[in-house]
C-alpha cells in the first residue's frame, strides 16, 4: 500500500483557525480503529494561560497505520477530512 494523505481543513475544524473547537466533537478520534488522529493544543498560538490551553487542533499523525476505511471522512460533521492516496 502506498502512502495515504489525510488533510484536515483547519478553517472548519480547529478554533485557532476559524473552525470549531475539536474538543466539542472528536468523532474522528473516537471512530478510527487504528487511532490515527491526535487532538492537541494548537501550535504557535498565544495562550492566555499556558497551563490551560484553549486552542485545539486535530492532526492525523499515524498515517502509515490508516487502513483507508474512510469512516472518519463519513463521520466528520464539518466535512473537514479529505483522504487521498
Amino acid at each position: 500500500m502506498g502512502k495515504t494523505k489525510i488533510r484536515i481543513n483547519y478553517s472548519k475544524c480547529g478554533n485557532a483557525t476559524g473552525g470549531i473547537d475539536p474538543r466539542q466533537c472528536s468523532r474522528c478520534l473516537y471512530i478510527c480503529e487504528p487511532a490515527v488522529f491526535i487532538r492537541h493544543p494548537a501550535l504557535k498560538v498565544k495562550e492566555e494561560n499556558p497551563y490551560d490551553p484553549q486552542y485545539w487542533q486535530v492532526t492525523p499523525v499515524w498515517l502509515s497505520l490508516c487502513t483507508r476505511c474512510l469512516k472518519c471522512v463519513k463521520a466528520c460533521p464539518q466535512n473537514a477530512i479529505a483522504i487521498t492516496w
Partner: protein
Amino acid sequence: MCKWCMRHGAGGKWYLNARNYSNELAESMNLQAYLEEQWKNFEQVYIRKIMGISSIDLGNKLKMPIIGRILRWSVERMIHSESLNRNPVRADGHFGQVIPIEEAKLIMMNLAAEPIIKNYCMCRMMQKGLKDACCINFGLLSSVIEKLPRFIPENSKLHITREEAVEALKEQNLKGRIATVWFQPVPYINAICSCEVPQCGGLRLRMDFGLYTVYKAEYVAEVNSDLCQGCRSCISRCQFNALRYSPTLERVIIDPIKCFGCGLCRDVCPQKAIILTPREEHPGLKGKY
C-alpha cells in the same frame, strides 16, 4: 530489564529501588520546571521535530532507507536519554515497563512518594477524545498535574490514598488494562498507568514501530497444559495476541515471544492454569524485553 536495572536498580529491578522514587532525587534533578514544561503541552509531543524532521507520519519516515535508520537511532536515544540537556517538550528520558498487578501494589504501598493523584489519562484524551480517570501519578509529578485543569477528574477525587491507588489499579486490570511503570525522566519514577493498545502513546511506538518506549515485563506467562480446560476466558484478556485456542489440542496455546507478561490472562483463569515465570529463567527469552 537488564541495562536499566543495572544502572538504576541497586542490585534489583529498577522499579523496586526506593531511591528512584525519592523527593531528594527529584530535587537534585531540578525536575519541577522540567515536568511543568513537559506537561503543559504534552499532547504536542508527536508533532514536534526530531533531528529537524517533523515527527508527523513517523511510521513512514522510519521506513525510509537511510534516514529511517538514523531517525530510529535518534528516537531511541531521545527516549532513553540521561543527558543533562534533555528536552522536556520531546519527552526525553521517558519510558516504562509492564508490571503485573502484585508489583504495582508493592510500589503503591511502599515506594511511591506522596502525594498520590488519579487523573485523566493523557493518551486516551489525546488519541480518543475520552476522559478516563485512571492514571496514577505521584511525588513531584502530582504537584505539576494539579496545575493543569484538563487532567483533573470531574467526577472523582484527585488526591487518593495508597490503598485507593491499589484498588484503582486492580479495577483497571479487571477491565483489561495492563499496569506499566514509568521513568519520567530516567531515573525518576512518578507514574503507574493502565494501558491499552492502540490508544496508549507508549505502546503505540512499541507495537507499531518497534521502538522501546515500553519494555516487556520481567515475567512471561506459562500455560499448564494439564490444567487448562480450554474455556478460552484468558484469550480476550490479552492485548498482544499471545494466546490462541487450539481446536486440535482443545486447550490454549501461548506464544511466549509475543507475551508481555502483564498477568491479565492468569488473573481470570478458573483452573489457575496460568502462572507468570521470570523472563530471565527462560532460555529463549532471557534479555528479550
